[in-house]
């Protein structure tokens, strides 16, 4: 299992690539108890645990790992949930390799402790055994509204509920979870098995979730504060607007935003035969972009029966997706057209996609992001045949809330301006965090912001007396 010196982590079992490429079941199968305990024993329980500072919500990592090593699973879960309301989610989708695990001393000479997979094990076991988060607080009589039930909103609501606040989450879609529900696919984050129970855990803390409420349309933040008695509001509405390339042919039949494609499949369950929602199922799909969303869209298209290429304008080293996701995509048979940029979508007479005209790129000088800027190679145009194109170029915050809330400042990218420490915005009593503030980022950063804002809101309401 593990080597005697503890340099190598316990390998995780996964569904075979060619099997999983044809189903929507989870790719990673998780540790067994025995594997988890052996892996936990690799933790050196450092006096100065650098992993904790690498975690945006500062989970007591040596604490929960040590309890796991001692097979005190309940205690391990308690330590975990002191800092995180969504451990089963984080154990699956956090980029641990750049956060906690990147800081692990074990990583200097060998593999870092597999913190993410251990977190997943503890959370999954707690769910299976029916262990609940500890709550011991009396209601304090103050009402707080949370906009959006994604990772930022759920975390903020959970933390406030633990402090005794009466919290209502308003969700625009018909199901809670935000990007966990509509964006991240089943094979990475099972909905019924993992997301729904974590949402239930937050509800069990006393948080109410009202779905089908579009803030800015159904009701505004000002109305919530003036007419419905909410003393403070947290905006965790995410970054929902898809970007397109603005190239010719982009409105052809067969061009989708990754948001649309993934929402049809994840939220609307189009992959299931009993779902009423249709999804386009062509034989060839090209996905433009190199982030986690591009990998998710590509691997979804593959599972729906297509031959899939990822088209990305920089090289493999610059792919913003997690290495694990890129590896998984490759194993499953997705082709990578790197250093390639589409310049036009080609169509037939009926405006159906038939291909993409692309150019090859080379890397020039670093740009503002520090990554080397891709430059088109003259005369390198070629046609890439495809029946559908999925644009996974990133998303930006929906301006709806900012445009309907008096005195809420936004920046030039339509992101809500909020301070990092407590998520305070320009409007009294209104806090914000997650992608709505930063633009598209990760689940765990959104959770960190939700946590910070919960502290900010608590102090704000206490200061008012």
């Amino acid at each position, binding site marked *: 299992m593990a080597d005697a010196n503890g340099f190598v982590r316990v390998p995780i079992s996964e569904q075979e690539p060619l099997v999983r490429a044809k189903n929507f079941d989870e790719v990673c199968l998780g540790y067994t108890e025995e594997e988890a305990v052996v892996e936990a024993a690799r933790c050196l329980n450092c006096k100065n645990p650098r992993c904790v500072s690498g975690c945006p919500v500062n989970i007591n990592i040596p604490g929960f790992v040590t309890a796991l090593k001692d097979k005190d699973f309940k205690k391990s879960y308690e330590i975990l949930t002191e800092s995180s309301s969504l451990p089963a989610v984080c154990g699956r989708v956090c980029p641990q390799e750049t956060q906690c695990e990147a800081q692990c001393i074990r990583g200097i000479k060998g593999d870092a402790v597999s913190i993410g997979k251990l977190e997943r094990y503890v959370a999954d076991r707690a769910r299976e055994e029916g262990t609940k988060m500890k709550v011991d607080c009396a209601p304090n009589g103050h009402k707080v509204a949370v906009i959006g039930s994604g990772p930022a909103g759920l975390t903020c609501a959970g933390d406030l509920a633990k402090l005794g606040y009466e919290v209502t989450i308003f969700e625009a879609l018909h199901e809670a979870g935000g990007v966990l529900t509509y964006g991240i696919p089943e094979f990475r984050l099972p909905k019924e098995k993992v997301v729904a129970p974590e949402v239930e855990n937050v509800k069990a803390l006393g948080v109410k979730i009202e779905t089908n409420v579009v803030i800015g349309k159904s009701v505004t933040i000002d109305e919530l504060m003036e007419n419905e008695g909410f003393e403070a509001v947290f905006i965790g509405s995410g970054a929902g607007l898809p970007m397109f390339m603005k190239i010719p042919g982009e409105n052809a039949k067969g061009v989708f935003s990754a948001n649309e494609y993934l929402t049809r499949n994840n939220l609307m369950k189009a992959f299931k035969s009993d779902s009423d929602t249709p999804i386009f199922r062509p034989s060839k799909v090209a996905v433009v972009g190199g982030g986690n969303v591009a990998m998710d869209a590509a691997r979804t298209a593959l599972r729906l029966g297509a031959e899939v290429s990822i088209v990305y304008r920089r090289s493999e080293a610059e792919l913003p997706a997690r290495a694990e996701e890129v590896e998984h995509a490759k194993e499953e048979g997705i082709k990578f057209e790197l250093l390639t940029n589409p310049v036009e979508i080609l169509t037939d007479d009926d405006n159906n996609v038939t291909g993409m005209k692309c150019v090859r790129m080379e890397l020039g000088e670093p740009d503002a992001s520090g990554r080397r800027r891709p430059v088109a190679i003259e005369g390198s145009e070629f046609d890439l045949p495809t029946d559908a194109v999925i644009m996974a170029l990133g998303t930006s915050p*929906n301006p709806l809330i900012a445009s309907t809330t008096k005195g809420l400042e936004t920046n030039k990218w339509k992101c809500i301006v909020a301070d990092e420490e407590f998520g305070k915005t320009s409007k009294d009593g209104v806090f914000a965090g997650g992608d709505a503030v930063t633009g598209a980022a990760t689940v765990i950063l959104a959770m960190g912001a939700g946590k910070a804002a919960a502290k900010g809101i608590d102090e704000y309401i206490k200061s008012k007396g």
Partner: protein
Amino acid sequence: MYLIKKKKVLCPSIFLMDVEAPRVAQYCEPGQFLIVRIDENGERIPLTICDYDREAGTITIVVQTIGASTKRMMDLKEGQGFHDVVGPLGKPSELITDDIEEVKNKKILFVAGGLGTAPVYPQVKWLHEHGIDADVIVGAKTKELVILEDEMSKVAGNLYITTDDGSYGRSGMVTKVIEDLVAEGKKYDLCVAIGPMIMMKFCVLTTKKFDIPTIVSMNPIMVDGTGMCGACRLTVGDEVKFACIDGPEFDGYKVNFDEAMGRMRLYKTQEGEALLALEEGKTHHGGCGNCGGDK
């Protein structure tokens, strides 16, 4: 659950429902729409708001059975409900948000095609309540499909009904009525045309001839209705717009109808299969070796 308080069959293929949805009813305005889902497996279906009662907390929808989902909706009874109702979505009609004095100075013509009568009604009613009587053309294929005639006649200035087959009212398409009215000497400063895309396209071609600025209400394929998916994108002038958040109403002169109509056909095969499966059971899933339905 969102309770169905009242259901009325307007003709064999069109029905009206009053549905309890207090948050939608509280702030919705003419021109906006909502999205419903029948049950847990249901798709998100955008529908126009035909009327609303803020005090009762209800909204009125009018639906035509065209596919599997709308057929299933028709089976819902009073006392049953929708799994989800969300809204109001989209922007209110500019007539409601523009300076009322300016609107009063305009002679407005509404053109409603078929089910488009439902979203035209609240706009005409709103204008009527604000002392403005607009002329309304209601067009339908045949007499049976003329809906909301009584309601409309109470709030419209002149109401012109026409049927394609001449079975009721005038005879011919709505575009012919527009031409006839102009020939009769009527002058209009603004036209609002709502109906099937093909009707709106030809309305715009007609009103363009007479230099009547024309607003159309677009109803493309949508998923979330909040700007998230971009399925509803349209070419308007030289810009790409999302019908759900930038519309649904646009300057008809600028809308690329041919592109929009093409995009509407994207899921036609799957929709047809779903309808067949609903009507005749799961008999269309392979075996014949031709359609590939089992693949």
